[in-house]
């Protein structure tokens, strides 16, 4: 497998870094791949936008930052505006349904919309929006098997919140599988 360059972006406080960590951990520890994750803070740590840059590969990874995105997950409009231009042609784009209006659109992107806010509200905790997105991304990206990511979720969330997060993950994954089925086949 060649390198896959991924970015997960959103507001500070949305937990996008944790999302990145889960995917990275899944890849690096449970899926036999290499993964390098770099966090970008805004110029200031506080309140501004935040994103995780993740490279997943079966080969060693040297240069640690993403340049041309193979996959992009955005949970805020700001992140969409900032990062979507770097998406490769036919790259995978996941946007949150309520928080992101994918405009201008990225022509040719494999675009999926995750209703993470809605699903999180169904679970009664808005905070799991990020884990739902991880599940969704896991399913649509087809980078790794569910089990790898699920184990990473278990290892990454506070013990007290495990059940909730696993539920959220599964919910996201299912929504992702659903979306994948409905998606038009890509060349």
């Amino acid at each position, binding site marked *: 497998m060649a390198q896959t360059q991924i970015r997960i972006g959103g507001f500070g406080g949305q937990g996008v870094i944790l999302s990145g*960590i889960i995917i*990275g*951990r899944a890849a*690096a*520890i449970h899926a036999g791949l*290499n*993964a*390098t*994750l*770099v*966090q970008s*803070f805004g*110029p200031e*740590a506080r309140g501004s936008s935040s994103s995780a840059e993740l490279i997943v590969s079966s080969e060693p*990874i*040297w*240069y*640690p*930052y993403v340049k041309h995105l193979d996959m992009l997950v955005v949970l805020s409009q700001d992140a969409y505006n900032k990062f979507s231009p770097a998406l490769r042609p036919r790259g995978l784009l996941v946007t949150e349904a309520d928080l992101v209006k994918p405009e201008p659109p990225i022509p040719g992107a494999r675009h999926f919309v995750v209703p993470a806010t809605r699903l999180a509200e169904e679970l009664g905790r808005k905070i799991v929006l990020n884990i739902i997105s991880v599940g969704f991304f896991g399913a649509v990206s087809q980078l790794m098997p569910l089990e790898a990511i699920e184990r*990473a979720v278990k290892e990454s969330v506070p013990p007290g919140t495990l059940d909730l997060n696993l539920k959220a993950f599964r919910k996201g994954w299912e929504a992702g599988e659903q979306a994948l089925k409905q998606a038009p086949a890509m060349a």
Partner: protein
Amino acid sequence: MHADPAGVLTGAHFLDGDHAACEGALAAECRFVAGYPITPSTEVVERIAQRFPLVGGVFIQMEDELASSIAIAGAVWGGKRAMTVTSGPGFSLMMEHVGFAVMTETPCVFINVQRGGPSTGLPTLPAQADMMQARWGSHGDYEIIALSPNSPQECFDLTFKAFNLAEQYRVPVLVMMDECVGHMMERVVIPRAEELEIYPRRWTKAAPGEYLPFAPGEDLVPAMARAGQGYRFHMTGLTHNERGYPDMSVAAQARLVARLTDKIRKNADALQDVVEDGVDGADVVVVCYGITSRVALPAIEACRASGLKVGWLRLRTVWPFPERLIRDLASGLRAFVVPELNMGQIVREVERCAGAARVVGVPHAGGTVHDPAVIERAIREAVR
């Protein structure tokens, strides 16, 4: 001696460099850490604060870096392996105590997770601009050991190694990380305790009456005593004799400073730790370290793809600088290319040793890493 399993978090982990360095210290039986928070190094001590109460270590957040950097010396003489952790501005404040540790031959470890400078600079962004400070930042003459990891795995490995070197040579050892490796997460594999070889402290075997705390052994390193064991030794940052008593004579100074520098200079070959790739027969060798050593690789590969013979020489130990190696290489090649996240530091060492070979620095003010294309261009120009 094998590591104490209590501190060894055996297994594969997804960790950033800061956390990996913390685990390296724990595995190396570090059991005292004094620190003062500073971005981007704070995660090291935050994890220490979490882990130490569970493994019998003492962490104290001191009032400043001056205090942290000498509290560790106190702890070492009290019998512990000890370290402190900081970044540029704090490192500047620790300089007096780097020299104190050198002078009193106190084995200890300083981690500096480098960020953009000078001054407060770019607290959250990477640089490699404290490399010369690592060598020269304290007043007076000394030699130092400084390591440069290029991944979280190496943050573990080299922090572990730093403790061993500190004990072996009775010197402060500097782990010169950068914000990029410090905050980058990757797989870090921590071996089992039995696979981790600890260089034990060189406790004296002499009886209290016979013990000379600063009389060197054959390898120039004196054996150590620990407080509370009846040795009633003295140590001082003044120029001193073998008893550890102040001796402010020119002769004592000449003897002491020569030994302190020779401990490192005479062991430069043993201390050399480089990784080579394609260096033999190369026309150009890229000399690099830390995060830049990774960033250089795509550039090197691009050049190789177009037929250039480019070697990759990565310094894991930056100080002592592998002078002899560079001199040897110099005679056989056309140029060295030295990319660094600074305005030209280690490149000066290469220049010193390059003889007739060209030396091309690829400076960068920091805040991010090089664009590999820039390094590629420098390589191509270097052989033109």
